[in-house]
């Protein structure tokens, strides 16, 4: 069985974001990058499945971007993926979902994976499109927003998170693609021995332009801080001062403190 996990490297969401020169996206300088949180669940679920099947499946982890994404790839290898594909694209920030999906599909088509795991969305772009687009381009069934996953004999039983705490159960036959929601499992931390072992695992590099040259279907502009709508007060200072101020405000503005 061949499994593909698609991961993205994104900035730490607690960063202070500034627009790049053309305001199409953020300025990358001074940002610390890490694996997209949704993708951590995708990696974990793939590794759990490999364990369930006695280690038989081979897991390939794939990421698109400049050399910095190799750090995220190495983490996935240390967690238990077997081999990696780095699709080199220095201008990854200007690639929109259709282009990213076309690149992944161009690679995946040549291998014929049985199962593809992706996060349900990225934390930075949040389009929730790439996974489903890859499945459509490959012509395989897919389902999204998994909070439960089971596999047996070529059949995936997926539990989808719907609104209001309701869940929906779906069955689909492999080859298939699923997108993972937060909370699907408990992502493990890589152990030191596994980090060392991961160093010997193979990372194959492709150039994005050799796989797909689809033009973009959308353009991006005016990356900005949202206009502040609220009339909220921002308080800064020492903890003691802040506590005093907050108590005064709560007594004044709410009926809950006497």
């Amino acid at each position: 069985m061949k499994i593909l996990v698609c991961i993205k490297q994104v900035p730490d969401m607690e960063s202070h974001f500034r627009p790049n020169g053309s305001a199409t996206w953020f300025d990358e300088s001074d940002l610390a990058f890490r694996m997209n949180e949704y993708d951590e669940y995708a990696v974990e679920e793939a590794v759990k499945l490999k364990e369930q099947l006695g280690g038989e499946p081979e897991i390939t982890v794939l990421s698109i971007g400049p050399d910095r994404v190799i750090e995220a790839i190495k983490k996935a290898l240390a967690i238990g993926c077997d081999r990696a594909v780095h699709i080199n694209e220095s201008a990854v920030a200007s690639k929109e979902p259709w282009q990213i999906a076309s690149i992944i599909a161009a690679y995946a088509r040549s291998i014929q994976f049985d199962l593809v795991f992706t996060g349900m969305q990225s934390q930075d772009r949040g389009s929730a499109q790439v996974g489903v687009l890859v499945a459509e381009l490959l012509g395989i069934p897919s389902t999204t927003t998994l909070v439960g996953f089971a596999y047996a004999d070529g059949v995936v039983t997926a539990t989808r998170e719907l609104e209001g705490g309701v869940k929906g159960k779906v069955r689909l036959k492999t080859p298939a693609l699923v997108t993972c929601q937060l909370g699907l499992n408990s992502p493990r931390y890589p152990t030191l021995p596994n980090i060392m072992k991961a160093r010997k695992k193979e990372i194959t590099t492709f150039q994005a332009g050799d796989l797909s040259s689809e033009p973009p279907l959308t353009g991006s502009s005016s990356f900005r801080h949202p206009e502040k709508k609220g009339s909220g007060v921002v308080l800064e200072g020492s903890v003691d001062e802040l506590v005093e101020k907050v108590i005064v405000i709560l007594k004044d503005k709410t009926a809950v403190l006497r």
Partner: protein
Amino acid sequence: MKLLLVGEYREGRLLDTSAELFGFAAAIGGDASIFLVGSAEDVPAFSGALYLVDAGLYGEYNPEVHKQLLLKAVEEVNPDLIVFIHSSYGWDLAPRVAASLKVAQVSEVIGFADNAYEVGCCNAKMHRNVTPSTSKAVITIQAGAFPALQSEGTPLVKVLSTDVASTTEFLGYEPAEAKDVNLAKAEIVVSAGRGIGKKENIEVIRSLAKAFGGELGASRPVVDAGWIDHGHQVGSTGQTVAPKLYVACGISGSIQHLAGMKKSGFILAINKDKDAPIGEVADVLVVADVLQFVPALTAKLS
């Protein structure tokens, strides 16, 4: 502009979100038609064309088949814009339709100007404009971003059918877990977010809730990490609350969390990130380390 709105139907009834599709259509202007996999017994009041698919025949979740049926409606209407709600139904189906038509998709739209759509990014801390470069486009609109509008009239119903084979088998729904903590009735809710750092620090937030005489809530990451059970979760997949006072401790403020608490009477947020989106709804944002500020506030109240 010609719009094709995609309504939602679940567990045998039309969902209220269709009113938000009408709200969006009225705001952007244009001729709207609706596509709905639902039932002739429960159609929205509306004075345009309704392309209806019998959910009894084709299932409430059956993406490959719903896609083919929606493409039939697209062929008939020839819309400029196909509009979904950004929901578990919409974000699942929209990219399939966009891929088949090979047109642009813009996800989780919160506004528009000219031909550009405003969307959030970077966990809603930032915004940007996305402009489709194809003549048709697919969009999903953020739940709650456009005011609900009750439409009037009786739709002209056109029934669609297909013999396309299904690729997924829908097995059924699991109801929401029973809520052992009733946050909705609490006058004060003090919630813990990822900013508390680790499970043990839940107790720091619980102590503040106690000092206020309120209930303990939590944001999704805290529940996903297993630091507290789901019964405490505030947000669109947890409970919706509107207490007199809501205290958000180390919660950045995802759209889903804000949807569950923004109607609170007074919102006090504590966060070390001054740009955190919780600041958009907070009456007071205290820029501080939660683990220093909260114990100090608790001591003062006790």
